[in-house]
């Protein structure tokens, strides 16, 4: 029964590598969006009976992660007129290799952690750790604000994956609150990125160097 779920997680992990390897910002946004949508439909695969609330959470996740946030980012990208993230702090090939190594590490680590019997066959923990690692790598390694926001989205996706382990036990209200908070966070980040673009006339965060010792 874990098979379709593991397939989806595998897909999400593959998208991590695409995100690390690409230099084009539109591709990066699309990867984050597709990954968000894949994550959104996972609760439907996990839950055996589709209650209204589960459907609601899934629909909200797909709409937010897959449509609303990416379109916000695309708009910011167009106004800033950037297409490629040139000169990243960590090059594309090194970050790809690091990401692949991180993925292997995540799988090994997940095998060593004590899991509940029903999660033994699942890739959830491995996928989660790999996505968190990918997100951090993008946050540190990329220089454009939008790429960093995408990194943050992938980091969040990884945490969401881990949250699926607890889906049966976390009250829906809490889950809804978490989802709402994360969405607002990304909105706020998007707005600030827009202001930075206006104030500095660039979205290159390496130019943000006024404040230092």
């Amino acid at each position, binding site marked *: 029964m874990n098979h379709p779920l593991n397939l989806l997680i595998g897909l999400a992990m593959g998208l991590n590598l695409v995100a690390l390897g690409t230099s084009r910002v539109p591709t990066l946004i699309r990867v984050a969006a597709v990954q968000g949508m894949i994550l959104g439909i996972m609760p439907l695969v996990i839950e055996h009976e589709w209650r209204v609330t589960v459907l609601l959470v899934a629909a909200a996740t797909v709409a937010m992660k897959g449509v609303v946030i990416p379109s916000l980012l695309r708009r910011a990208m167009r106004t800033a007129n950037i297409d490629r993230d040139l000169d990243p702090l960590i090059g594309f090939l090194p970050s790809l290799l690091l990401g692949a190594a991180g993925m292997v590490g995540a799988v090994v680590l997940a095998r060593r952690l*004590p899991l509940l019997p029903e999660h033994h066959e699942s890739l959830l923990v491995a996928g989660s750790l790999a996505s968190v690692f990918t997100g951090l790598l993008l946050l540190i390694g990329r220089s454009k*604000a939008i790429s960093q926001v995408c990194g943050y989205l992938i980091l969040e996706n990884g945490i969401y994956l881990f949250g699926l382990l*607890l889906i049966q036990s976390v009250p829906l209200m809490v*889950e809804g609150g978490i989802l709402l908070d994360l969405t607002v966070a990304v909105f706020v*980040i998007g707005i*600030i990125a827009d202001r930075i673009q206006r104030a500095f006339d660039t979205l290159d965060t390496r130019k943000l160097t006024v404040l230092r010792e």
Partner: protein
Amino acid sequence: MKELLLIFVPLLAAGLAALWPYNRTRPWFLPAAALAHALLAFGLLLQPPAAPFHAWLGYDPLTRAMLPAVSLLFLCCAAYGVPYLRLRAERSNRVFVPAFLAALGLMSAAHMARHLGVLWIATEAVTLSSVPLLHFNNTPRAFEATWKYLLVGGTGIALSLLGSFCLGYASLHGGGTGDLTFTGLMAQGAGLSRPWVLIAWVLLLVGYGTKMGLAPMHTWKPDAYGEAPGIVGAMLAGGVTTVAFTAVLRVRAVVEAAGAGVVASRTLLVIGLFSTLVAALFLLSARDFKRMLAYSSVEHMGILSLGAALGGVGLWAAFFHVWNNSMTKGSLFLSAGNIRRAAGGRTIDEVSGMSVITPRSAALFVTGLFAVTACPPFGPFFSELLIVKSAFATAHGWAAGFFLACLLLAFFGLTRVVFAIVYGRPRQAARELDPRFRETLAVILPPVVLLLLSLWLGLATPDVLREAWTAAVQQLSPTP
């Protein structure tokens, strides 16, 4: 249910302020809501309500030991906010006032959160509500600071969510039924899966430690405190950090109940000492007096962490220090705001002779400096002395020595900057700039009150507070 008003009164005031059409009168929402909040918080301090065992939000002993300090600080900041926003009449405060009030309501919620998920939601919401406060000045520097705050703070808070999930999984793995209230988790105790508890502890300490500003996760702090208006800096340094400290303490109690208390104490000790060291070294080279306050805040977070690591008397002293830190930092930030406004500069290269231009604020700033560097008879002296004593009593003599050395270095760093800007000849720029700034009673009284409170805490700590801190220590480490 009176305690829930602590959350809803400020949020309601925030909503009303957002709808209020007049820019001139809107700031009055700040003191009005703050006064109601302070009366409620102190009423509950004197007559604590019974916290139901499994309630998600409650005014339990831990909340009681810390939230009134935040409320008091907010009241003084709110009183300062009215004249401050009048000086800044050129900027619309339609976002600032509601965001500031919302931050108070959400901070109350985070203090009162007794559920792992609710705690995270409230803390994240506090982070987000303070974003509009940080870039109120609307300069490129302010946006740069906000961006760093969002990215570093956002990553930290994301890691604490992952940590919360790990702790939840530890409970499930140990046969839990999905009860994620802290009391429920503590009751499960040794039943929690140990590897998952340890992973959760690391992630949650990094996550909430970022919010607190413990080194090495403190990098957002100097930028944010340097660019934010004085009242926001005071609120961040005295209020938001306290929220994060409460979160760390709540999680630590669970880790201790799970039988990993030694690991938790050791990490808190190391990270606390490291924070004081980093802060002391940066203070020695600081040139900007608002960024200097940020490093001083890192130092005091280190002190809190050290006190918490020692447990028992040390933890009691940490609660004491939370109050002292809120009061003294508040007074320093507000008087620094006055000086900054009158001087038109912020580094020791641009500013000097402020004792001539703003004699009252300069006097306050110097007195605040002595308070914050733990000179008797101010409150911080007594709380830090107690922490040092408890370090010796628990055979952590080397930690106490290291700690005292760092405090000495920090003292040198702080006095160097403060005396450089206060004494000497006033710069021409400051004489010509901003003739509107007058040291009126309205901008002097709030920092004076905060400083007097710090003095009062040191000279005559009220018995009700002593009792509240003792109760909080008992809540966190119940003796079997």
